[in-house]
Structures are given as structure tokens and as C-alpha cells.
């Protein structure tokens, strides 16, 4: 086993609204092996973005990390001081967001924003900073970088802005990059450029990546390991091949079954029935039980995330000794490819 750069254990982040506690992240456990890419998948509201923001302590009021641990290179981040976190952000862990326009400051040029990062983190002056900025823009494939460096964000296209964000995030060669839906707002041809770019840069710098996405195609192409989230919990953690070939959790299977594919012919999609429960109607047992085709009496109690013989984890009663129903789930047939 390779060592883990990030080890998250039973992380809990809640939002306190009008006296109610909304558990956005409710016991999340996963590891990111050094130099690898971990994907976090899940639908809207599953808590994947909040998990990522928690890592960098970017949760604002009324949100709060209420429990669990986040270990980054054997350092506990949940109790780290503000000054230490500022040092980590951008230097050791960087983040890119979904919407590059709102993450860039519209009144400063690209060069000014990149220079700021170099000044804060590496103490570079204006001339050196500009030189580095141009190098970085070239690295992320922006044509005529010496011209672009003096332009404002609005003068750039969406794909270019996202590349600027990547340049900024990688300015200090971080050890861990958190990419929160980095390509969701982009067209597929631009998405292909960005994903390939992240992959290339990862190999060059040797960084680890946490890729948050709802797109199983993106996961299959970029990730080594995957954590599937549902209603604030990790329901399955597996290496990429196992996840697609031998998915265990009924939710993972449901996701794969309902995915319309462009690469194969399908007769029918098999959707998951119902919809995600509202936070105030959250079942106390398995969160997925009301929508699960296999649900049984025991599912009224919450199963644990348990490690299977192949080292992957699943949170489902079917894989425990207490299960009395039919063993196994109806597995998605991935081999009917044309």
C-alpha cells in the first residue's frame, strides 16, 4: 500500500439554521494515496463539495465542522490554527472551483492576480512574478501568454478562464489539488482539454488530486479511486476498475444503470425510483433504503462502512452476515459495448 497524503475519518460538517442542525456531511471517511487521483461522486446535495471545503477549513457560518479528523501528511487540519491554514492553502493544498468567472477578480488583470499568489507565497517581486506568470500561462496552454497576462478575466473565454484558475492553483506546485466540478460549466471539447491538462500537470509535478464531479464518465477517465457519496455519507469506496465492473452498493449500481451512454446502444434506462430525501425527512437507518430495490427490515438501522476482502469499502447490509435476503445486487452489464 502506498502512503496516504490525505486521510479523512468520520468527518462531520453541519449547518445550524433556525435552531435546526442540517448534517451536510455526516461521517465521511476516505483516503487519498500519494500521487493518485480520488474521485468523489454523488448527486446534488450529497455533500461532496462541503467535504472538500471542510478540508481547507473554508466553511463559513452557519456551517461548522462538528466532528471527525482530517489528516494531511500526518498533520491534523481540523484543529490547525488560522495562520497555519493560510500557509497550507495555495502552498500545499490548492483548489479550483466550478465557475471560473466568479472565482477570478474582475477588476484585476490575469497577471496581477497570478503575481499576488507569487508575492504572498514565494515573496517574488513584480518583474519575477510576471515572468513566472507568463511561464505558468504557457504551461496551461494559453496562446500568446505575454499578451494575455495584461488582460482582464472578461476578455477570456470560459475555457481560458478555467485554465487561468489552474495556473493560479498550481502556482506554488501544491502537493494536493482539489478540483470541485472543474469542467461542469464547460463544453465537452473544452472539458477534454482541461482534464487532459490536469492529468499532464499531475504527472509533471507529482501531485495528488481530489476530483469532485457528478459525471461518471469524468471519473472513469481521470480517477484511480472513487468515493461514492449519498446524503452526506460515503456509501462505497473502491478502486476505479472494481467500481465500474463490480459495483457493490445498490446506489452505485442504480447510478450506473440510469446513465445514458453515448458509446453503446441501450434498450432501456433503469432509473432509481423516488428522489433524494429532504434534510428534515432523512431516514434514520440506511439513507438509501427508501429508494433501494433490495431494502429489507434490517435497513432501518444504519450500516457501517465496512472493508471487503478486496480492500474496498461498502456501507450496505447486503455485505454483512446479518443479511438474510438474496446475496448480491443486480449488477450493471458493462460488457455490452459495441
Amino acid at each position, binding site marked *: 500500500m502506498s502512503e496516504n497524503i490525505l486521510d479523512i475519518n468520520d468527518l462531520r460538517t453541519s449547518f445550524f439554521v433556525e435552531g435546526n442542525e442540517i448534517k451536510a456531511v455526516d461521517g465521511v471517511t476516505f483516503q487519498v494515496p500519494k500521487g493518485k487521483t480520488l474521485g468523489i461522486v454523488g448527486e*446534488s446535495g450529497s455533500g461532496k463539495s462541503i467535504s472538500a471545503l471542510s478540508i481547507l477549513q473554508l466553511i463559513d457560518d452557519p456551517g461548522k465542522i462538528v466532528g471527525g479528523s482530517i489528516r494531511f501528511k500526518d498533520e491534523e487540519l481540523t484543529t490547525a490554527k488560522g495562520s497555519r491554514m493560510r500557509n497550507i492553502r495555495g502552498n500545499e493544498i490548492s483548489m479550483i472551483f466550478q465557475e471560473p468567472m466568479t472565482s477570478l477578480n474582475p477588476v484585476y488583470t490575469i497577471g496581477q492576480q497570478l503575481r499576488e499568489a507569487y508575492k504572498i507565497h514565494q515573496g517574488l517581486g513584480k518583474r519575477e512574478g510576471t515572468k513566472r506568470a507568463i511561464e505558468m500561462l504557457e504551461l496551461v496552454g494559453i496562446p500568446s501568454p505575454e499578451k494575455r497576462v495584461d488582460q482582464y478575466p472578461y476578455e477570456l473565454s470560459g475555457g481560458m478562464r478555467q485554465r487561468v484558475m489552474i495556473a493560479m492553483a498550481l502556482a506554488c506546485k501544491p502537493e494536493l489539488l482539489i478540483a470541485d466540478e472543474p469542467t461542469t460549466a464547460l*463544453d465537452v471539447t473544452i472539458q477534454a482539454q482541461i482534464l487532459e491538462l490536469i492529468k499532464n500537470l499531475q504527472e509533471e509535478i507529482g501531485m495528488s488530486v481530489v476530483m469532485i464531479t457528478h459525471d461518471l464518465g469524468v471519473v472513469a477517465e481521470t480517477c484511480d479511486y472513487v468515493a461514492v457519496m449519498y446524503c452526506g455519507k460515503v456509501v462505497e469506496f473502491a478502486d476505479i476498475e472494481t467500481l465500474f465492473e463490480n459495483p457493490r452498493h445498490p446506489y452505485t449500481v442504480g447510478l450506473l444503470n*440510469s446513465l445514458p451512454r453515448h458509446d453503446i446502444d441501450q434498450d432501456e434506462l433503469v*432509473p432509481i425510483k423516488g428522489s433524494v430525501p429532504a434534510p428534515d425527512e432523512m431516514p434514520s437507518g440506511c439513507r438509501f433504503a427508501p429508494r433501494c430495490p433490495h431494502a429489507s427490515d434490517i435497513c432501518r438501522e444504519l450500516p457501517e462502512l465496512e472493508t471487503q476482502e478486496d480492500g474496498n469499502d461498502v456501507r450496505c447490509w447486503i455485505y454483512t452476515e446479518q443479511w438474510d435476503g438474496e446475496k448480491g445486487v443486480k449488477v450493471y452489464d458493462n460488457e455490452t459495448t459495441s
Partner: protein
Amino acid sequence: MTTKQLLKVENLKQYFPIKGGFLGRTVNHVKAVDDISFTLNKGETLSVVGESGCGKSTTGRAILRLDEPTEGTVEFDGQDVLGLSKAEMRKMRSDMQIIFQDPYASLNPRKTVRQTLNEAMEIQSVVPKRERNDKIIELMETVGLQKHQIDRFPHEFSGGQRQRIGIARALSVNPKLIICDEAVSALDVSIQAQVLNLLKRLQSEMDLTFLFIAHDLGVVRHISDRIIVMYLGKIVEMGETKSIFENPQHPYTKALLSAIPVPNPKKKSERIFLRGDVPSPIDPPSGCRFHTRCPFATDKCREETPVLEAKDEIYEGKHTVACHYALDIQAGKHEAKYEMTNVRKALNE
């Protein structure tokens, strides 16, 4: 089997004026849709795909005259749509309905499901007043909503349920054609599958015709009979679904298909990276509009606009493409000018 033509679009153009200058005169145009023609047969699903700004949504809106087209003809069931008066057009819309992407923005937040559906039927007067309540309940059941939700407001529903209300509203006036403008794009994949299955079921039960506007090619492959690929306001390729996916002809279609991530970690496809971004539709490139990003482009592509035509007898004219070199590229006689499988090279070009 004879197929009946339901919709015929010819030489449709949609230019939006750009006002500017001292007197607010029209200084230029955004050529959102620039001279496209196609037909849609009864009972079929035709999809229009392409990236942002290619004109796919504008096409849908122009057909319904939600934006008045600049030029061209639209024929629906043999009737000239663009020549109708406002009152006649309103009547015509009971045959042609549209479902939008964002169900929250397209439903009146102050109206319940009952009021929303009632309003649609009242405007089109398709159902006598006393039968409307039964019809509303029937519609709700058809789209998978519960009878007891009839007096609820849009905010009380989830995204998928709201989209079902949008579908029920479109169905309430017994349309023949439904234009689905990114109707499932905003939905999570598990809910998206529910809505897609619903649309398919409704189509076979009610003999509906769909014009399906989407950017997700997985969804498109699943639902369509035929596909139109658009780029910068023009149709670059049109054909049957299987033929487009398995034998794409246009370099843009090929790049588009290769760019989609495949949800199978064992299948790593050779990817074609396009350089740069889509040019502005205000001053689109001359000749073939794709030439600025096309690795196969020559001087001819910069000067002559290619015609959308069948290149290969095998498809009996059913698969058409607008590219000067489609056949030569296929035969390996016309090679790419630069490497397309390396992202850095493609981007820094």
C-alpha cells in the same frame, strides 16, 4: 410504411441586431442561426446537438416564433407558420409545445399545479370547463405525480417533479410536436433517467413528435431517431443516430464524440483535441466556419462554404455532411496538418 412530414424548416436565419454607437443604431448582427434546413417526420425524435452558442436553442425558439426569425420558412402540417397572424399563431401553439431546461424558471411560482394546467387549457380551450379537473388529475397521473399534490406550488416540488409539471403543461393542450430544450440537463442522473423514460413512454402512447435540443450526447443517443449536429449557426452533419455515432463524417462531429468521457475505465479512446475556442458568431469565420479549429483545413475551406450533402451512396442520402474533404479524410487521402492527440501541442498551436 410511409412517413408523414410534420415540420419542414427551410433556409431559416435568425440574426439578432447589436445596437451601439451614438444613436443606438444597429452596428452588427449576431448570426445565431444562419441558413439551416431540415424536416421532421411524424412520430420521430430529431435531436439538435452542439456546444454553447451553436444556435440549437435559437432554432427551437424560432420555429415557435418565440423570437421572430429573420428569414426562411417554417411549415407545420402543411401550414406556413411564419405567415400566421398573432391570433392564429396562438392557436397553432396548441399543436407545438415547448419544455424548457429550468423548470423552476418556467413555472409561475404563485400558481399551483391546478392553476398552471388550468390556465394552459383555458387559453387553448381544448377541454370543456367542467371536464378540466378530471383532465388535470389524468395528466398528473400520466407524468407520475400524485393526485394529492394538485394544489401545491412549484417550490414544494423537487427538480424532477417540477420538470414533470412542465411536461404535463405541454401535454395539457394535446400537442403534436414538443420541442424539448435541454429538458433533462438540469436533473441529476437518476432523475434524468426517470424523465427520459417518461418522455419515451409518452411518445409511443400519444403519438408525439419530439425536437430534442441537448448537449449531452449520451442522452441524445438514447432518445433520438435522427441527429443534427450544429456548429456556429450551421448544420455540419445530419443523419440517423446509429450512423452519426458509429460513422461520423465531419471533423467537428468526430472531435465532439471523442471528447466525451466514457464511463468505462478499461476503454481509453484516442482523443482529438481541438485548438482554441468557438469563434464569435458576430463575425463568423469565412468559408467553412470550423476551419479555424479544423486540423484538416485548407485554403478552399477558408474561401468556400461547404454544402450539406450526402457523400456516400451507402446511406442513400440519409446521412449528410458539410465538409469539402469528408470522403478524402475517410479514405486517408487528406491528412491532418498538426498533431491532435497531444493537448499541449493543440492548445499552443
